[in-house]
């Protein structure tokens, strides 16, 4: 999908020719250490980031050639954090996800309400429908915002750490949900910090380091000790002795501070 994308923020080159491909129906994890450009790459793929170089395509079509409304119908973007500026009612907040499907003055109708209710049910938040966003807990809010992103019934979901603020049970609920949607044909690109969850749920992983695609492949191929060492400065390994994969970090590797980038 994204090919050789480069992005400068101010004078700093954040992405230097990063690439990421997600096949239809794949659950792709975007991983990498802090500051490696994960969020920037995700924003670039959503068409929100001015690129210095590189292209982003959906089904072979350049997103720059697509109308913003058309892109919005196909792609859903869920940023990190939970920015909601007014204490909206949950149902109305999730209904904002239907905006791409409302043209002109058309108001929400039956199918829209059905999609909103379905999205809330899917994230386990149907009981919150009458609540006000400002009165929700962090975890409830994160799930409601995910429901907003899913309410547009997107072909592609781009989510930036959607489970970072959730407890374990709700992490599993949300990731199970995204995986189920991928089985039904949705494509997901999700930024992860938790490598265990990434290894467990993703079909493929892209590992970013300093704005470049450092490794790409199945979790088994990407989360090898050499990559953990080179990308994260950590001695660790991908294990699966409990029946599910998990990443163990054993110790930090101290390195001489790197010189300035050439």
């Amino acid at each position, binding site marked *: 999908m994204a090919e050789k994308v480069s992005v400068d923020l101010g004078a700093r080159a954040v992405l230097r020719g990063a690439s990421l491909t997600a096949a239809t129906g794949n659950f792709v994890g975007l991983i990498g250490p802090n500051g490696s450009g994960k969020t920037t790459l995700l*924003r670039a793929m*959503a*068409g*929100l980031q001015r690129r210095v170089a590189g292209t982003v395509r959906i089904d072979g079509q350049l997103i720059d050639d697509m109308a*913003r*409304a058309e*892109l*919005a*119908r196909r*792609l*859903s*973007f*869920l*940023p990190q954090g939970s*920015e*909601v*500026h*007014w*204490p*909206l*009612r949950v*149902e*109305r*907040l999730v*209904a*904002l*996800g239907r*905006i*791409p499907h*409302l043209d002109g003055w058309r*108001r*929400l*109708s*039956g199918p829209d*309400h*059905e999609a*909103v*209710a379905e999205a809330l049910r899917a994230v386990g938040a149907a009981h919150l*429908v*009458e609540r*006000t966003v*400002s009165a929700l807990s962090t975890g409830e809010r994160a799930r409601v*915002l995910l429901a*907003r992103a899913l309410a*547009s019934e997107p072909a592609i979901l781009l989510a930036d750490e959607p489970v970072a603020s959730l407890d374990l049970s709700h992490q599993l609920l949300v990731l199970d949900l995204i995986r189920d949607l991928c089985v039904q044909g949705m494509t997901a690109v999700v930024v992860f910090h938790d490598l265990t969850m990434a290894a467990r749920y993703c079909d493929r992983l892209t590992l970013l380091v300093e704005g470049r695609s450092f490794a790409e492949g199945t979790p088994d191929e990407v989360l090898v000790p050499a990559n953990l060492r080179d990308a994260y400065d950590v001695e660790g390994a991908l294990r699966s002795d409990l029946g599910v994969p998990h990443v163990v970090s054993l110790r930090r590797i101290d390195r001489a501070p790197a010189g300035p980038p050439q």
Partner: protein
Amino acid sequence: MSSIALESRPARRAATRDGWLILALVGLLLILMVASLIVGRVPLAFIATLRELLSGDETTAALILGEIRFPRAILAALIGATLGAAGAAMQGLLRNPLAEPGILGVSASAGLGAVIALYFGLSQTFSFALPAAGMTGALLAVLLTYVLSGRDASIFTLILAGVAVNAFAGALTSLALNLAPSPYAALEIVFWMLGSLADRSFDHIRIALPLMAVGGILLAGTGRALNALSLGEDVARSLGVNLRIVRARLILGTAFSVGAAVSVSGTIGFVGLVVPHLLRPLVGHEPGRLMLPSALGGAALVLAADIATRVVPVEPDLQLGVVTAIVGAPFFLYLILHIRRSMR
């Protein structure tokens, strides 16, 4: 099928509730409109005078009603509607309940334009010089704000540019006062800035209405984008909102309508701040649903304040802007304390 009916119920309820709110505000507006026609220095037998006016009798009472009170009431409603809608628009765009119509410098600059016209005595030689200068000031302010903040301005830069324009317009207004040729000229400027609707005629409506209408058209239809902006700029864009166009519509719409309002009435504070704030909980805090009720509520508030300037027996007459500020500021404080819990 039953589940569909079940799910669509809350939305219909919201729409009906907005309907009731709008109906109630229209009712209030009509009552205040009639009150504004009845109340004044000269007591009028309203129905009888209205009959005289409609049948074309040129009695003094009919003249007072037709040439003084009607334009004044209509102008009060128009200006109030403009301030209320623009306040709601700015609060929605900037996602800040403290935003008001003048936050980007439009009011202060329109005021400055009018003050310059007063200072050079242009308003005596050419009666429309004052509103014309005011509108020029408002449009220059918007241009300046745009230039200062750049084409792809973030909301933050926009607010900072507005602060700068506001400060500069304020400084030039003070300069005009400082260099005023006579104490009388200074007094005239000060009184004009206090805001008033006294002695306005249908000519003022004719000047202000076209620009207010253009502004209103620009503001209308941005509701959905304002709702999307509740989730931040990135999400709004990802939902298909063209932020550059929406921002331009909101800023230009505010400049046109508020510029026109300030040009004929002087600065009338707190209406654009208090009214959206007061009505927001009644529309589920949705910025897109807030604009029309705010326009109606603003119209009602300015009408009520203008009636107050006529019934409070002090000499010289109270100025409209003084009344809105004196009532508005403590009321706003009360609102902040009251609503603080739900705004968290």
